[in-house]
């Protein structure tokens, strides 16, 4: 070996140093508490800042190796190719196991540094334990990366060309889905660390909840976006006409989303009403464990085959051990501190925000548990009895959909009920309009011949929630208009800027209703046809006449293929063309289909090219997917609402109002 280090070896060295620094930070942080030496904590903090610098350098060397096609790095040789376009050389960094875990660790170092930077002064007593927790998670991941899943490992002899990135991943969608999803996964590590710190200190009041509200909202929003991007990618890349298949890999990301959503809502009860302490620490630990489980499920290969897992048990065993350790620590601390987790306040009314949020938590956790069992039970049965069992979309749809419909109603009710409670007479009066319109939607559905109870209820639920949310918004604006004596537009602006959290939340709910409408439309009213056509043949689907015009060859540097051209007409007028493709990637010997997609407000036309027969006939699948675009629009609304809510700093409401002001007004608090 030569004396000069290659860049990739430097990257590996950086990751190794980062691991050493994490161990150092844990030791310093714990010692700073035991020896009452705050100076040691500064060293621990700085170690975590250095950790960010080192891992940034490490990640940069790996991306560099992809960009210059350095095939002496095994990971690059396995996932890139000289013909690969530049964009995909960047995204290939997280295109497979090793690189995506490095991305995980880099995110964690980034969030750790950000959390220490932002909260250093506010939470001095919790800080040692926050640092120790985050550094321990980081050490766990770095040790795994260096020992069992090394993206910097070298390859000799150096191949002339790489084995190419998986063609399914050669798509702009991949540029966004995994990194955004991981933002969400890793984001939950910060609330987890704060909760662990307050459990260790025995200070399980509302402070940790207040501190991490925005972290939780950020992580949950990123997770929402990651899941939606994944759905969008599956929709236009995989070519089966849908966006969610209840595949175990998808379920793995849904579980932390469900638990994280429950957490985000339940935390408000602790912040505003000093209740649900144990419930919240339970939820934050569970959410974080589910993000680890998600990484484990997707990255250990256990889902592809239990046997593959058994043949190469190193990675899987490590991840299971890590998960078990985190679980023991998290749940163990909760049990240890159980007596401190009693609520301070009492529940005063059955029809209150508190009970609505409790119901929301319970329903979301029921879905989480169903998805958990449905995903893992077949694996367990296979390991124990050797019997193979499938739990797929029909099961999940049947079990999860009713709960989701209930949540849709709850989403309309929850934000409109005040804390502490309201009388049932007032409740009925407040929800007069939503109930009336939901009933009207039900009647309209029956009139149009829809008979499935769940379909009817889901439509009524969407109408109910939308009405309730909009009523709430307009009441607030009207109140502001009257009290301020200003015009509508100005009153709306004032409400938006003064109650950002509340309005952000309402906007997010509205976005979720739009997503639900998109799912109801596309899930329950899709029409599709598998057709065999010659040139010039026409077929009708959902009011569109689709005619096959021709099939041509395509020849690109890294793939070859065939492209069909369909013309689409509606009401006798030509509208547009659809051009689905079928591609062959020679390096991996893989065939993929490129969907042709035409999104419209009321639905998408979607064409997939199948095989061609020797006598010139083409098999194609054509879909009419109603309202799919609403899911993507709803996501944008969710993002806007979350962004609005994120701009409001959480104030320590109760603390300030209960105590008399210690100082005269105008004197800076020093």
């Amino acid at each position, binding site marked *: 070996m030569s004396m000069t280090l290659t860049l990739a070896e430097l990257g590996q060295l950086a990751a190794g140093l980062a691991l050493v620094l994490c161990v150092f930070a844990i030791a310093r942080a714990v010692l700073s508490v035991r020896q009452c030496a705050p100076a040691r904590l500064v060293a621990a903090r700085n170690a975590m800042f250095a950790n960010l610098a080192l891992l940034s350098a490490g990640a940069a060397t790996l991306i560099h190796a992809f960009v210059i096609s350095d095939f002496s790095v095994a990971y690059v040789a396995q996932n890139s190719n000289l013909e690969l376009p530049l964009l995909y050389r960047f995204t290939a960094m997280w295109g497979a196991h090793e690189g995506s875990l490095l991305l995980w660790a880099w995110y964690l170092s980034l969030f750790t540094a950000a959390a220490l930077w932002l909260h250093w002064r506010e939470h001095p007593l919790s800080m040692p334990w926050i640092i120790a927790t985050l550094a321990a998670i980081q050490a766990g991941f770095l040790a795994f990366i260096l020992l069992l899943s090394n993206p910097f490992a070298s390859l000799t002899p150096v191949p002339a060309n790489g084995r190419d990135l998986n063609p399914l991943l050669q798509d702009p969608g991949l540029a966004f889905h995994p990194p955004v999803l991981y933002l969400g996964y890793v984001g939950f590590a910060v609330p987890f660390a704060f909760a662990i710190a307050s459990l260790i200190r025995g200070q399980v009041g509302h402070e940790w909840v207040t501190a991490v509200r925005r972290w939780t909202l950020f992580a949950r929003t990123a997770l929402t976006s990651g899941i939606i991007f994944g759905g969008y990618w599956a929709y236009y890349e995989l070519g089966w006409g849908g966006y969610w298949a209840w595949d175990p890999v998808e379920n793995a990301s849904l579980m932390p989303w469900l638990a994280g959503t429950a957490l985000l809502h339940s935390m408000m009860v602790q912040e505003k*009403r000093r209740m649900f302490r144990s419930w919240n620490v339970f939820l934050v630990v569970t959410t974080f464990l589910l993000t680890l489980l998600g990484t484990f499920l997707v990255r250990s290969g256990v889902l592809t085959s239990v046997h593959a897992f058994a043949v190469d048990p190193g990675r899987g065993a490590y991840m299971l051990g890590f998960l078990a350790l985190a679980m023991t620590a998290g749940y163990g601390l909760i049990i240890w501190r159980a007596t401190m987790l009693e609520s301070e306040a009492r529940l005063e009314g059955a029809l209150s925000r508190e009970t609505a949020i409790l119901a929301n938590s319970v329903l979301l956790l029921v879905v989480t548990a169903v998805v958990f069992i449905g995903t893992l039970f077949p694996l367990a049965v296979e390991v124990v009895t050797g019997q193979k069992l499938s739990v797929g979309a029909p099961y999940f749809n049947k079990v999860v959909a009713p709960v989701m419909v209930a949540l849709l109603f709850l989403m309309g009710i929850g934000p*409109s009920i005040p804390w502490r409670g309201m009388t049932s007479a007032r409740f009925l009066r407040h929800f007069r309009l939503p109930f009336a319109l939901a009933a009207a939607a039900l009647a309209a559905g029956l009139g149009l011949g829809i008979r499935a109870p769940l379909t009817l209820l889901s439509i009524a639920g969407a109408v109910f929630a939308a009405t309730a949310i909009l009523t709430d918004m307009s009441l607030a604006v009207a109140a502001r208009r009257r009290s301020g004596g200003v015009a509508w537009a100005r009153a709306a602006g004032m409400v938006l800027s003064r109650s950002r959290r509340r309005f952000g939340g309402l906007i997010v709910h509205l976005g979720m209703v739009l997503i639900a409408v998109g799912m109801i439309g596309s899930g329950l009213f899709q029409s599709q046809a598998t057709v065999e056509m010659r040139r010039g043949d026409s077929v009708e689907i959902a009011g569109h006449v689709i005619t096959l015009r021709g099939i041509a060859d395509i020849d690109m540097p890294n793939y070859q293929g065939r492209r069909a051209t369909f013309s689409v007409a509606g009401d006798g007028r030509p509208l547009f063309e659809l051009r689905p493709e079928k591609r062959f990637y020679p390096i991996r010997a893989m065939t993929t289909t490129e969907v042709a997609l035409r999104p419209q407000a009321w639905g998408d036309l979607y064409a997939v090219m199948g095989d061609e027969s020797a006598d010139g006939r083409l098999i194609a699948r054509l879909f009419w997917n109603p309202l799919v675009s609403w899911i993507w629009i709803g996501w944008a609304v969710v993002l806007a609402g979350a962004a609005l809510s994120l701009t409001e700093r959480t104030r320590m409401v109760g603390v300030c109002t209960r105590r008399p002001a210690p100082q005269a007004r105008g004197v800076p608090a020093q």
Partner: protein
Amino acid sequence: MRLVLAFVLALTAAPLWAGRLVGEDPAEARVRAVATGLRCPVCQSENILDSHSGTAREMLELVREQVIEGRSDAQIMAFFRARYGDYVLLSPPSTGPGAVIWLVPVLLVIGGAGLALLLVYRLRGPGKDTPETHAQLTEARLEELEP
């Protein structure tokens, strides 16, 4: 404001409208419904309708034949279950280990409702003196207080 309200309401009722666009051969709709419940035995978690594999195509053709012959969904499912085992059913059978899968959601809903009721019962009672602050009031209550 009312216009906005009316507009968005019309939009949320969109599935009603979307539903009217569907017009499909009922036999083919049944073939699809049955096919989405059958797993392609040679693929990775795909149903036989979405899979491009030869096996899935043949199975789909068998489903179509049996639908045309007038056999019931249950009969067709039983036919494939006898041939390929429980693995082929994407919705697991409610006998054998699959029963757990169906029992768990029921228990969860009962347990969840029980837990919620227990919590409500245990936490119920007059509250300590925690005055409602301005920030805790909903906009709807603000409207009442500041007419």
